[in-house]
């Protein structure tokens, strides 16, 4: 599904990713862990096409298509979704209008007619229930005045609406209390299917107690330096990252 080979990427001339390789198949959950500044968020930005980052080398292929040729909106409409670490507030753009525009753009991309008002409302209602999201929130502007937890829930709500093939959850656990974490993780798990894949980017092992990964990768200094099963996450939790750094240094 996703094949990343020898990926180098930089921002403002500073190289952050230094030859990253990653392969994700349908149905899999990959966790990417690593200390601060190792390049985790850069990876999600580069996959989704953030124009602030420049890919200097390597390739990102999604379902046989070269992502670097595509604008962020095309990648999204191909089925890639990013749950932001810091969701952006957009004053004046209502959640309903935003979501309807996004859904209809996706349908246009797939050569489908615009969604009917009744279908749209029904789907909104279903997906809101999935993340236990308050009606009040969908009547407001996108993320405006949302608490940290509400913003993260809103990300998963949008993910549920758009039904991506590949979802990237960037530090979705940061700033969540234990109840919100359970709701968010529950939402992600319910959306899981053999056809879609998830990349969970996280600093801590906490979220991985709820979303069980098939693979765990350690990102350090712009490369994946260690990969393993879910036990690796436990080991990182117990021992921290220093031993990895030492292993790499040797």
């Amino acid at each position, binding site marked *: 599904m996703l094949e990343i080979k020898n990926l180098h990427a930089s921002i403002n001339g500073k190289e952050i990713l230094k030859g990253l390789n990653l392969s994700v198949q349908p149905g899999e959950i990959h966790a990417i862990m690593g200390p601060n500044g190792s390049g985790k968020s850069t990876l999600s930005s580069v996959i989704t096409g953030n124009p602030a980052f420049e890919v200097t080398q390597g390739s990102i292929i999604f379902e046989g298509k070269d992502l670097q040729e595509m604008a962020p909106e095309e990648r999204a409409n191909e089925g890639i979704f990013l749950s932001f670490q810091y969701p952006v507030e957009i004053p*004046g753009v209502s959640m309903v209008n935003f979501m309807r525009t996004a859904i209809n753009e996706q349908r246009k991309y797939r050569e489908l007619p615009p969604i009917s008002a009744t279908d749209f409302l029904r789907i909104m209602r279903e997906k809101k229930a999935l993340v236990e999201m308050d009606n009040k929130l969908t009547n407001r502007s996108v993320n405006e005045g949302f608490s940290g937890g509400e913003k993260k829930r809103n990300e998963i709500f949008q993910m549920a609406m758009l039904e991506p093939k590949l979802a990237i959850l960037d530090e979705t656990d940061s700033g969540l209390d234990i109840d919100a974490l359970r709701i968010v993780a529950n939402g992600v798990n319910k959306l899981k299917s053999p056809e879609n894949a998830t990349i969970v980017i996280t600093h801590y092992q906490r979220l991985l107690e709820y979303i069980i990964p098939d693979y765990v990768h350690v990102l350090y200094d712009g490369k994946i330096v260690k990969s393993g099963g879910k036990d690796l996450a436990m080991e990182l939790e117990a021992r921290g990252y220093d031993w990895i750094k030492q292993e790499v240094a040797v």
Partner: protein
Amino acid sequence: MEKQYIDLYKAHHSLIKQHAARVMNESRDASFALFEKMGFPTTKLENYKYTDLKEMLSLDYGLNVRRLDFPVDPYQAFKCDVPGIQSYLYFVVNDAFYPEYNEQNDDLPKEVVICSLKEAAEKHPDLVAKYYGRLSTQKQDGLVAFNGAFAQDGFFMYVPKNVQLDRPVQLVNIMRADVDFMANAHNLIILEEGAKAQLLVCDHTVDDVRFVSNRVTEVFVAENATYEHYKLENTHIKTTNLSTLLIEQQASSNVLGNVITLHNGLTRNSIEIALNGENCETELCGMVIADKKQQVDNFTSVLHNMPNCHSNELFKYVLDDVSKGAFTGRLYVAKDAQKTRAYQTNRNILLNRTAKMRTKPQLEIYADDVKCSHGATIGQLDEQAMFYMRTRGIPYEEARLLLMFAFTADVIDNIRIPALADRIKMLVEKRLRGELSKCEGCTICQ
């Protein structure tokens, strides 16, 4: 530049007076003397430093001092931008009130007077004499003085005590001529105690010539009266639109001004609202969408002369290409105007590096127990928000449009006529999509 007009006045002042309302002639010579002294405003004046009128005002324009009829049927010439708002509808062609009967206006309450200023001065001389020029002759301003010297007629509206209009009044100003042309008009609007009226002024141009429109509007809002003034400008690129709006509020009155420029050439809106009674409510807002070489200068003053009033000002600009915007927000709080609450915001988006915005909050506060704030920003569309929307599959152009539209939303929220708000939303969206780079039904702007 001024000389041709000074000569014209000296040679033809009796002709000008002959074709004007008598009440307007009483202050005419004094206005002329003031204009002769001041001339047209230049950028050397603090109040005009952002907008240079010289280039446009130095051209030759025809004036219709004999007030010959212009052959025009406004119902034909004008395609309404805001159909379906159910208004009482009136036209002014250049400076002349269009007299033809319109059944749409049959329901206008009998006590209300809407007509040309000239007719009002004949039929209600005391009423007009009581108000005419009370605000405008106090102004030390070259454009207002020029208007006082040359304006011969205008629009008149009188809403007597406790009469509340159920529908908005729509005044459509149409500029129409076969040669480069200048019109001066003086409008007078009077609301007595407890009256209520909404006025929507639409500015239009129909011929492919250069126009200068210099209008002065005086509005008197008595105690407990409510007045809403909407101005929607959709003129062509060869228009110089000079407008002075002077509003006086008495105690516990409520005024909303909303000035929207969708398309224009060079526009200068001077708006002054004097709060001369306690417990006034004032909301003044505006929006500018400009591209190409358009220029818009909103020069606003809110004068808190009495205590316990509340004013709120909000102006937003979206500028593209080599357009230029200017905003001045003068907020004056007199020494005894305690417990004033006055807020001002001006936010601007420049869509490229060549558009220019000048903004100047100007607070003069002489009272010591007040709440006042001001804020002005000039920026670009939020890149992070753009990226966020694009990751949801919304294409670049659409995301940009949504952000621009959202940016102007709070000005539209300040329109209290729902049908007008809906219509303006649509016009703004079309304008932002580039479908309204000229006015609807017009072929003049390229």
